[in-house]
């Protein structure tokens, strides 16, 4: 166990040191990768632990971007006040949204979440305070090191929260809901309330990630903020790394971001295709995610992959 903690501390130190030994391209890649890892980790709270697949979490990212942008560009407030404003809006929206839609189960919930981001994008395009179609321009701060370290701190906070969830009564209730929601209700777990709490926690971290991103790129518009491709990416990255685990979404997001970056760099146009192949291979050989590979491979060696295929009847 000590060895694992040491490896983890070394990994965190290495990540924290990137701005001092990396070039500008690596730092910028790092900010994007860390922020998408926050999204994956946030998605993991409801999606991985409670088993509720949301394709609408990008709405919280958009709300976070707009919250910070409106606070800074329209009201001339400092960044940190903007973050508080953004997180408050996103959490309130999650609670309001969750109350009706988290009564739906499984695929019905997933379907309902699909349209939310598009609807919010349309709303932002028509609001004066949100800059309508044009968007908003934030004050410029050229300090990639600061944005990088802020993203890393946010990811650490999200991961520590998930680590707490994984060992708490709250987390046990979420897992019980995932395993059998009727049974969870039969032991007195108020499923709707727990699911709303999980969604609100996801909204909190996702919105702050959106806020940091908005301040970093200094310009936001409706299509870029309420970006539904983010929804697919955070789901894929969590599934790739290991849903319902503490480190899986982080590992999945960082590894997939790196793979995509390398592919886009070397073979540009065909990158999307190869990315698809990587994910296909992962789904077939690693259905429980990348973080399950270490332990499983040590015990079963190459039979690990065969067992996975058999077990999940792919």
């Amino acid at each position: 166990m000590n060895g694992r903690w040491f490896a983890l501390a070394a990994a965190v130190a290495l990540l924290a040191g990137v701005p001092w030994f990396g070039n500008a391209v690596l730092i910028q890649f790092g900010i994007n990768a860390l922020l998408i890892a926050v999204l994956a980790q946030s998605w993991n709270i409801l999606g991985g632990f409670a088993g509720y697949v949301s394709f609408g979490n990008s709405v919280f990212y958009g709300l976070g971007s707009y919250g910070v942008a409106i606070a800074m560009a329209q009201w001339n407030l400092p960044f940190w006040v903007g973050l508080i404003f953004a997180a408050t809006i996103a959490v309130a929206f999650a609670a309001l949204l969750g109350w009706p839609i988290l009564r739906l189960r499984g695929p019905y919930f997933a379907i309902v979440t699909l349209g939310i981001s598009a609807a919010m994008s349309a709303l932002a395009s028509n609001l004066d305070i949100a800059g309508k179609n044009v968007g908003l321009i934030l004050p410029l701060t050229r300090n990639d090191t600061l944005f990088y370290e802020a993203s890393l701190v946010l990811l650490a906070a999200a991961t520590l929260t998930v680590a707490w969830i994984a060992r708490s009564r709250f987390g046990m209730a979420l897992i019980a809901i995932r395993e059998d929601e009727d049974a969870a209700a039969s032991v007195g777990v108020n499923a709707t309330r727990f699911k709303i709490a999980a969604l609100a926690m996801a909204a909190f971290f996702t919105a702050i990630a959106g806020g940091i991103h908005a301040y970093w790129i200094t310009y936001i518009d409706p299509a870029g903020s309420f970006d539904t491709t983010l929804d697919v990416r955070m789901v894929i990255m969590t599934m790739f790394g290991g849903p319902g685990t503490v480190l899986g979404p982080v590992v999945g997001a960082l590894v997939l971001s790196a793979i995509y970056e390398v592919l886009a760099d070397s073979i540009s146009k065909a990158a999307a295709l190869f990315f698809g192949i990587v994910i296909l291979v992962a789904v077939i050989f690693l259905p429980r995610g990348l973080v399950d590979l270490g332990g499983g491979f040590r015990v079963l060696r190459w039979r690990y992959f065969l067992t996975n295929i058999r077990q999940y009847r792919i």
Partner: protein
Amino acid sequence: MSDALLDIRGLTAGYGDVPVLTDIALTVGAGEIVALVGSNGAGKTTLLRAVSRIIKASGSLRFLGEDVLPLTPEALFARGLVQVPEGRQLFGRMTVAENLMMGAYRRRDRAGIDASLAQTFDLFPVLAERRAQTAGSLSGGEQQMCAIGRALMAAPKLLMIDEMSLGLAPIVVDRLLDVLVAIRGQGVPILMVEQDVFAALAVADRGYVLEHGRIVKAATAETLKSDPALQKAYLGSDS
């Protein structure tokens, strides 16, 4: 009958506008095992759902002397009305120990929870052996034990068991029936809903026969067991 734990009178319930149950009267007293028997579609599960307040009902429903008709399922659970659902409904990828602890989810009394766990392992030694295994890897009989154990972990004042014998070998059912008697011996009365009429009546004190949404017979288990109509209907014998 005012000392009954569960006291149902003139209860009507159903889905939408169609009543499935009409004018139900049923009581469970302290220290009793009561069997509710009837064929498929008679309304047994509907009655359990009405009692645990999942579906709408009208009439009189009292638990521990309190009118519980307006309560939510969680509130009723908190008062000690605990159900073992049909089909077990265990948390498949959680361990046996975690499943049992989920039963005590709403409890805060550490010492009481430990005592309940010891009591459960006492009733089902096999659960203690398999406590670190996932519930999904248990046999059907062991899963039913785990489901009953999980319900006991909630410190029930009345245990309602839905179709306990479903899909289990007769020898396993006999073993579980013995456990029900032991649970009653520890002061927890039981309302069991069963298709296997004669298994239920073997351990019950009293029984109710439900047909087409009405109670058609209510008598001691001894009387029901020797009832010719019941024997004909459920055993197919012409004696």
